[in-house]
């Protein structure tokens, strides 16, 4: 699905070395006792970005978010927002608002009072507060629900009240902790696009914490993948998916086939890797930072492998191997094949079902050839 042009992605300030970051996280470490929940993280986030912090539980993404909000102080390192050092600044003095995972709506206040809470703290005149609340209610399409208490709302409505409340003070930076985590799948997909739309309209910088890689891929301008307290990779969704920098990132995002191999040829223009697991050589059509005889890993996405009954051309005497179809999963738009190679290694291959009810499609127990382009896979050294 093509993404609508977005403020940040149009300009891509992170590609401009001279651009000034809006949020600057510098060498931040947070220790709980002896355990480092966040370990020496440095991260620049630019204005109007929708930045996703993606990671499993315990990866430190929530701790990083809580440090931005001011609920935790970094053990070392500094956080700057809009050029202002946030060390020692209390949560109630930060130009930031947060949408909590549990929504944290005040149960004894109705929707309007919840949204107005932050505005009242700024001592705005009542008429202005009422105007802003009405504006926000229409933004999240809850005009008729202003007098309801949180427990009288559905999960999706609560989520929108929480968003409206967090946006009420027009923060420069909005933190969202698993914003869609408590919603069911269908509602999540709808809300996802609404969230992006609101972010584009208001131009607010969003930092979203999520464990859901699909959510991160479809929401984010950039993604920071976190693993055990460290940033494993920062990049645009396509970079993260197509050019992972490590085994962890390749395996964490989407599904991937990973094999071990030994470098046999290391030229500036190409690399040849011998893989016993794959049962053939891998010819990589670009230079890789490696040394001959080095053991490394090669990862390829299931949709980048092609299946055929006839032996395809192998221009470099590489990138072709044989296997047997062990399992087929029919998903409608595509089918997932599990191919057993001669080495005993299993590869996952997806093929788009372009022909309706194809009687000649590859089926169980067939011997097939697998092939891929010389730049389809990623060579990973870590």
């Amino acid at each position, binding site marked *: 699905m093509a993404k609508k042009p977005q403020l940040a992605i149009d300009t891509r300030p992170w590609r401009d070395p001279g651009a000034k970051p809006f949020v600057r996280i510098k060498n931040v470490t947070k220790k709980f006792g002896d355990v480092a929940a966040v370990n020496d993280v440095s991260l620049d986030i630019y204005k109007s970005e929708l930045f996703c912090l993606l990671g499993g539980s315990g990866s430190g993404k929530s701790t990083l978010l809580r440090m931005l*909000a*001011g*609920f935790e102080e970094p053990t070392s390192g500094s956080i700057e927002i809009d050029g202002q050092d946030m060390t020692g600044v*209390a*949560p*109630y003095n930060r130009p*930031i*608002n*947060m949408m*909590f995972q*549990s929504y*944290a*709506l*005040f*149960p*004894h206040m*109705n929707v309007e009072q919840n949204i107005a*809470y*932050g505005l009242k*703290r*700024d001592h705005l005149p009542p008429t202005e507060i009422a105007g802003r609340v009405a504006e926000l209610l229409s933004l999240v399409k809850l005009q008729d629900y202003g*007098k*309801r*208490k949180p427990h*009288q709302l559905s999960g999706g409505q609560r989520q929108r009240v929480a968003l409206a*409340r967090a946006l*009420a*003070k027009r923060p420069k930076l909005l933190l969202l902790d698993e914003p869609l985590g408590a919603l069911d799948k269908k509602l999540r997909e709808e809300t996802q696009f609404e969230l992006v739309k609101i972010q584009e309209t208001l131009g607010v910088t969003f930092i979203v914490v999520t464990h859901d890689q699909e959510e991160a891929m479809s929401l984010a301008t950039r993604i920071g993948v976190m693993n055990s307290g460290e940033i494993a990779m920062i990049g645009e969704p396509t970079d993260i998916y197509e050019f992972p920098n490590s085994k962890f990132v390749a395996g964490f995002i989407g599904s991937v086939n990973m094999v071990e191999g030994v470098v046999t040829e290391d030229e500036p223009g190409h690399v040849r890797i011998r893989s016993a697991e794959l049962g053939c050589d891998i010819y990589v059509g670009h230079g890789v930072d490696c040394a001959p005889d080095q053991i490394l890993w090669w990862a390829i996405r299931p949709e980048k492998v092609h299946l055929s009954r006839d032996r395809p051309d192998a221009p470099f005497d590489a990138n072709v191997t044989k296997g047997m179809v062990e399992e087929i999963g029919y998903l409608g738009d595509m089918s997932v094949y599990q191919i057993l190679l001669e080495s005993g290694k299993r590869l996952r291959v997806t093929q788009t079902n372009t022909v309706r009810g194809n009687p000649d499609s590859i089926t169980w127990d067939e011997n097939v050839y697998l092939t891929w382009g010389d730049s389809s896979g990623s060579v990973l050294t870590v």
Partner: protein
Amino acid sequence: MSSFDTDSPPPPHRRPWTLFERGLKAIGLSGRALVIAAPAIWLTVFFLVPLLVVFGISLSVKQFGRPPYTPLLTTDEGTVQLTLHLSNYLRLFTDNLYVAAYLSSIKIAFISTVIALLIGYPMAYAIARAPDRWRNILLMLVILPFWTSFLLRVYALTGFMRGNGVINNFLGLFGIPPVVMMQTDFAVYVGIVYTYLPFMILPLYTNLVKLDGALLEASADLGARPVRTFLSITLPLSMPGIIAGSMLVFIPAIGEFVIPSLLGGPSTLMIGRVLWDEFFANTNWPRAAAVAIAMLVVVVIPIMLLQKAQDAVQDNERNT
């Protein structure tokens, strides 16, 4: 292995209570009715009936003899006569002693409740926010005084507050002359607050421990300083705990007898002591009974009003 003979009737009275159950059915009772009946009967026999007896006595007048009050029903030559004396109740209103004692009791109970709330709230809050491993120990410390007799603990307080007691001896070290604490209202407040503090802390604790920390963070995030967060979020959400704790202190404190008689002086006027004097010193059972019934009214009516208000608030929350 023999097959089951499905035609044979089930062995009679397999379960020991089958017979009992059948017996109950025969007189039109089910097990459920019995379970409900047990507390109902208990309350009727040991609470309602004695209360009616007291109410009955309050409508008679004192006489010398045994029992020391006139019977309500008298038979005279085949005529059954019911005599209800309202004089005891009228006396409660006309004699300033009683009105003053009621007002003084309410005042002492109210001030004690407020002090207990002011001391108990921070304690309950601290326990609720303490690390898990400390929480049970701290709660234990709150409950620990109950392991000693209430009477003994009140007596122990006299050892602290009397002329040459612990406090005055301590003050003496700094050359401060002894402070008179015993036989004053101050001592009564100390006694009541000390004795009933756990009843304030425990309901507050159970309420505050459920308070979601994310709500406090959300409030801070929206720009509220800690004091504002407390007033706007913590306090309103802990109202049920405040009401429950205050009731548990206020109600027994109104009728308190032991503390004012052990710690209070002759000027400490509380209805519990008046009742005691009426009963034992004056042997005026009817008057004492009237005092007790009036106290019940004084205590029960505000509670009922409060309960109603609380229900209304809850209904309001549910229906808006």
